């Protein structure tokens, strides 16, 4: 009964229009009082401090800042123009950039929320300015953000490897092909949509004379500084993922200087935008962390999982059930804390039912982030809705997410049906 009451409270607060973070806090207060009484409220401050000083979350503001600087320096416009000049008039080419950038940045960050926010600030804004279809653009961004934890480097993969006793490097390799398959599906979907309705493409003519391909490639050189600062420094063993985000910020400053857009007011505007957006996102994360702790304290999460795991069902049904749990729970709960609860319970089951660990954990990881882009509670949706131009409302992000949720589910089925997708690359190690 209290559980239903709690869910009713949460939905009630959401639908009344209480801000998301406050609605979560309201629910947490209610749940804490129901669970243990006022004593339970004492975990709130410590939990808030813990979340707001978590080192992984440092990347959220840094990535958003990187996006702000790139956008304000004109880098994104130059990028779009360059692709126009290099690729020519191929249908949906601008959307391809969105897919590429999403997958690339997804690779750089392990955080779907950070990527969604950063892309909302950059490619969403540029794509919409070019007359792109806002739903298609937002869907691509969310899809790309969803791939962030699967494509290396990824902190979440490391955590799975550590908790489940699976080889971390093999898991990282296992995620690459499914990530690329999902990217290809996104591309095909866009082509299909544009074939049916060409008006949803970005404007063909921006009134800009077509430049030479060589010049276009040259114009991309400064942009590659940023890519190098983020990805290169990690691969060369110069910086950790957190540090590389900070290096990327300074790379973006250098790019802005090269494009002659660097000024104190530009830097301050970028910082202000980043601070406001990060504060809003991280407040939601703090609230969701408390919710996860309360769930763990109540024993509800592990009871639920054990009950389902105890059912006698054919392996496929078990697999579907085991994947539904993180998908549904990740709509509400903090990914990392949820992993701490689920992975120890799941690890023996992988062996019991004879699932291939690479396939299983890759599916698990995709499901975790899928929860983050699924309406109505997905954090990446909130982040994108807030980071993107005002014409893209939160409800637009809901609509935009749906087809891409479908595409990722197709990817999940492919990963399950086609074992080499996750087995081949790890076998080369």
């Amino acid at each position, binding site marked *: 009964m209290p559980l239903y009451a709690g869910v009713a409270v949460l939905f009630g607060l959401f639908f009344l*229009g209480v801000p998301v973070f406050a609605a979560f806090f309201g629910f947490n207060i209610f749940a804490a009082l129901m669970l243990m009484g006022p004593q339970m409220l004492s975990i709130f401050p410590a939990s808030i*401090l813990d979340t707001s000083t*978590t080192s992984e979350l440092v990347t959220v503001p840094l990535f958003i800042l990187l996006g702000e600087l790139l956008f304000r320096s004109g880098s994104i416009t130059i990028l779009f123009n360059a692709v126009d000049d290099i690729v020519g008039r191929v249908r949906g080419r601008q959307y391809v950039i969105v897919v590429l950038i999403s997958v690339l940045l997804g690779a750089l960050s392990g955080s779907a929320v950070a990527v969604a926010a950063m892309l909302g600030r950059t490619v969403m804004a540029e794509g919409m300015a070019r007359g792109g279809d806002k739903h298609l653009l937002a869907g691509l961004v969310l899809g790309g953000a969803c791939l962030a934890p699967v494509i290396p480097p990824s902190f979440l993969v490391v955590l799975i490897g550590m908790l489940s006793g699976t080889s971390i490097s093999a898991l990282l390799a296992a995620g690459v092909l499914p990530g690329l398959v999902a990217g290809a599906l996104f591309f095909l979907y866009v082509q299909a949509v544009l074939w049916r309705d060409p008006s949803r493409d970005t404007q063909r003519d921006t009134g800009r004379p077509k430049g030479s391909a060589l010049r276009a490639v040259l114009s991309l050189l400064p942009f590659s500084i940023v890519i190098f600062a983020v990805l290169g420094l990690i691969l060369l063993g110069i910086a950790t993922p*957190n540090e590389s985000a900070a290096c990327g910020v300074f790379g973006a400053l250098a790019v802005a200087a090269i494009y002659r857009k660097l000024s104190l007011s530009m830097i301050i505007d970028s910082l*202000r935008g980043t601070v406001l957006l*990060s504060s*809003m996102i*991280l407040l939601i994360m703090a609230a969701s962390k408390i919710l996860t702790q309360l769930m763990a304290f109540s024993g509800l999460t592990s009871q639920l999982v054990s009950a389902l795991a105890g059912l006698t069902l054919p392996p496929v049904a078990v697999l579907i059930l085991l994947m539904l749990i993180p998908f549904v729970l990740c709509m509400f709960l903090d990914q990392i804390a949820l992993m701490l609860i689920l992975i120890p319970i799941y690890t023996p089951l992988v062996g019991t039912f004879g699932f291939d660990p690479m396939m299983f954990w890759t599916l698990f990881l995709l499901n975790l982030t899928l929860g983050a882009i699924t309406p109505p509670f997905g954090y990446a949706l909130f982040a994108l*809705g807030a980071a993107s131009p005002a014409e893209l409302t939160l409800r637009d992000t809901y609509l935009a997410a749906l087809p891409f949720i479908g595409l990722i589910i197709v990817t999940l089925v492919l990963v399950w049906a086609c074992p080499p997708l996750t087995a081949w690359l790890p076998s080369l190690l």
Partner: protein
Amino acid sequence: MTETAAAPGQGAATSRKGSPLPRAFARIHDGLTEAGLWAAIAALAGLATLSFIGTLARYFFGTPIGWGPDWASYLLAGCIFAAAPAVTARGQHVAMNLLESVLNFPMGRLLLSFAALILTLAILTTTAWIVWGALRAAYVAGTATAAGYPIPRWWLLAVVFYGFASSAVHVLRSLIGLVATVRSDQNRV
């Protein structure tokens, strides 16, 4: 769908019409909020610079900045909560006011905004009060952060408290603004 919890400037609008004391209070509160935002901007700039210089110092000079990561996380906390009142004042928290877009009669919308603001106020006040308790306890006990480079825990809790409490005041001002708008509309009729 709007992304507005406390509509920007509503509180300020009321105070302009109101008596001098609330007006002065509103001005001070708005000034404090902007100052908090600037502090958050400084914290973020510091955080990015610290991580960047830390990387260079370790890789090129073999002298890592030991306190860097701890201070980066303190700055992150400072950044989030010093900016929180400004987010509230600007109405930049995401909200899902689905009902509001369904209701198309003004009175219904008004009641809805009223309910949302009251609930938000209650939640933020309660949270601020909970944090205040922890802040006092940490101050009295002299607890530090469990880090290699500790700072008093109450420093951080003070910023968290400020974030919630000042946000609550912004919501309260919006609520007063809403009531004042309704009153003046009635007077006109």
